[in-house]
């Protein structure tokens, strides 16, 4: 007997009694017809699903959806207007005029669009000009706080306020005003917690909090915040934020001298960079993992990672990172017993970092160089290396406590009292000096036994 027609199959799907007994008998025995009926049933299942029918009735969309649509249109309009209103203040050279104009107090600037754009600029500006970034973020905060709670639907005003406070915290962090940064970050977190659910802002603020704790030597708090940031970012598929959080976590572990765990984290980062094809993350992960393996004395792995990082940073034309990798390779060479080549590399790094105006890094390289010269029995060269870097700091106008620390170390080298403990103490101080410019240098109280 031939297969059921499409019409017969369709009628059978509606009611089996609508087709003949012979058709029903055939259907029970025929795989092809049963398969065709199963496909038809799949289509019918979709017709029974309420989702299929949404929006098909002539009625207008629900008021809540209409409200969201209006919100989308309004945000776009606000953003467009903000670009026009703020076009004269984009560059740091406009900082004085921006402050003089006090835009936050002028009604035409009191829109979410202006606050968002100020946040965006503050974010991109915080490394280049943290003071201007702070002024931008403060203005954004002031505007966001002025807007009534009900001005945006579904509590999203707290998102804007959290964002502005987060940028304020970030700028304060870059200025080294860590207690104020911490306060702003906590306020930002409180705003984000008022949202109906956890979103990207909370992931970011955990990261900022982690950085602040890290810079204040609060490694436990930094670790916890880094975990929270990573978890929150992972839940929202925010890869970049996840990697940033993991990178912070790696540095926390490194500072705890848990080099094996830190290497594990950095290797995970570089593998994720590989899977997403992000060369910058592969390079960063390789450099950091290589540094860990130098500390662990696993020099073969260190060599492989550091040379891979060097190759990648060169391919990215990232000059400063190339020099930083050369610096790590210099330390590796020393660990491999090749002190002359290590000294040669570090001297070159000193010159290059000075040329890049990476003065703090130059100071740190000088400390490493002093350590290697000392170990290589070339102690007499150390005071000159440190004197040069002190001059570099002075010429750059970097009259911070780091300068005092380096000058102290130079004197210790002159007097033959420089010890590994003192070197480590000064290195740690110089590392933090940029972020905490108000911190005063005091010599270590005593040598460890």
């Amino acid at each position: 007997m031939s297969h059921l027609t499409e019409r017969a199959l369709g009628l059978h799907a509606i009611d089996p009694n609508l087709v003949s007994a012979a058709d029903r008998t055939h259907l029970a025995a025929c795989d092809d017809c049963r398969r065709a009926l199963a496909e038809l049933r799949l289509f019918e299942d979709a017709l029974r699903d309420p989702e299929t029918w949404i929006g098909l009735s002539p009625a207008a969309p629900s008021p809540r959806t209409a409200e969201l649509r209006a919100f989308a249109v309004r945000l776009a309009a606000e953003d467009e207007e903000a670009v026009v209103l703020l076009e004269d203040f984009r560059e740091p050279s406009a900082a004085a005029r921006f402050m003089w104009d006090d835009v936050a107090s002028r009604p035409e600037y009191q829109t979410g669009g202006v606050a968002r754009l100020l946040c965006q600029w503050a974010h991109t500006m915080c490394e280049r000009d943290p003071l201007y970034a702070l002024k931008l973020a403060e203005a954004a905060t002031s505007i966001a706080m002025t807007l009534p709670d009900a001005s945006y639907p579904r509590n999203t005003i707290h998102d804007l306020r959290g964002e502005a406070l987060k940028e304020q915290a970030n700028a304060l962090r870059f200025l080294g005003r860590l207690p104020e940064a911490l306060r702003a970050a906590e306020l930002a977190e409180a705003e984000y917690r008022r949202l109906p659910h956890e979103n990207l802002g909370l992931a970011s603020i955990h990261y900022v909090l982690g950085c602040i704790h890290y810079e204040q030597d609060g490694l436990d708090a930094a670790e916890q915040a880094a975990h929270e940031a990573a978890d929150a970012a992972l839940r929202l598929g925010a890869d970049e934020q996840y990697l940033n959080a993991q990178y912070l976590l790696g540095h926390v572990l490194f500072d705890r001298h848990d080099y094996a765990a830190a290497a594990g984290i950095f290797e995970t980062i570089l593998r994720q960079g590989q899977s997403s094809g992000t060369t910058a993350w592969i390079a960063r992960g390789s450099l950091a993992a290589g540094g860990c393996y130098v500390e662990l004395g696993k020099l073969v792995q260190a060599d492989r990672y550091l040379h891979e990082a060097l190759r990648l940073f060169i391919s990215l034309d990232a000059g400063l990172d190339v020099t930083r990798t050369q610096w790590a390779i210099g330390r590796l060479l020393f660990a491999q017993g090749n002190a002359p080549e290590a000294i040669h590399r570090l001297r070159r790094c000193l010159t290059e970092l000075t040329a890049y105006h990476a003065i703090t890094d130059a100071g740190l390289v000088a400390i490493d160089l002093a350590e290697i010269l000392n170990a290589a029995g070339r102690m007499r060269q150390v005071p000159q290396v440190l004197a040069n870097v002190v001059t570099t700091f002075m010429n750059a106008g970097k009259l911070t406590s780091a300068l005092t620390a380096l000058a102290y170390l130079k004197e210790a080298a002159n007097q033959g009292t420089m010890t590994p403990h003192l070197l480590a103490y000064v290195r740690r101080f110089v590392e933090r000096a940029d972020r905490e410019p108000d911190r005063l240098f005091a010599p270590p109280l005593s040598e460890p036994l």
Partner: protein
Amino acid sequence: MTALATDRLIHAGRVAAGHRTADNREDAGARFDALYASYAPLLRKIAMRKFGIPAGDVDDLVQDVFASYLANQAAVRDLHPYLIGAICNASRQYRRKGDASPFSPRPEHRECGATPGDELIDGVIRNLVIRTTLARLGESCRDTLERFYLLGETTAAIAERRRKTANYICRLLNYCRNRARSIYAGMHSGAPT
């Protein structure tokens, strides 16, 4: 997988929203319509199936997720996992608040990866395309299918309302559904017809 799923959903959503990409790129409202049409069904399904959120409360969570996305557009680099992660967060939050509520928790469904399975996405895309198909049917056909499949009315009840015989309604139903399948097959080659 994620980018592919996003493309497929957005494409299906644009078709469902009748949105022409090239003509309306600058139109934030049209972009929102397409996005909402693409993702709202998927987000509802995740909230209901994975977290057991009651149907009456699901829309509220979905609206929160879209509002949150709109407020964070600049920071969202990967839309698909963001929206899915956000509905999971919103659903978890709902369940945390509702711990004292009468419905029983379903802890086995609380875990929520950023990427739902292909089966779920395929189902959502099929619904979106069928929705577009139904929009192209005549009013009488659509009404008949809606009453029978969505509202669960019997052929006899529909016949009585239309003053026709039940047998006629069965044949009409068969014709309308076959017509819909034929349009669907033309729009969605490769999908089950």
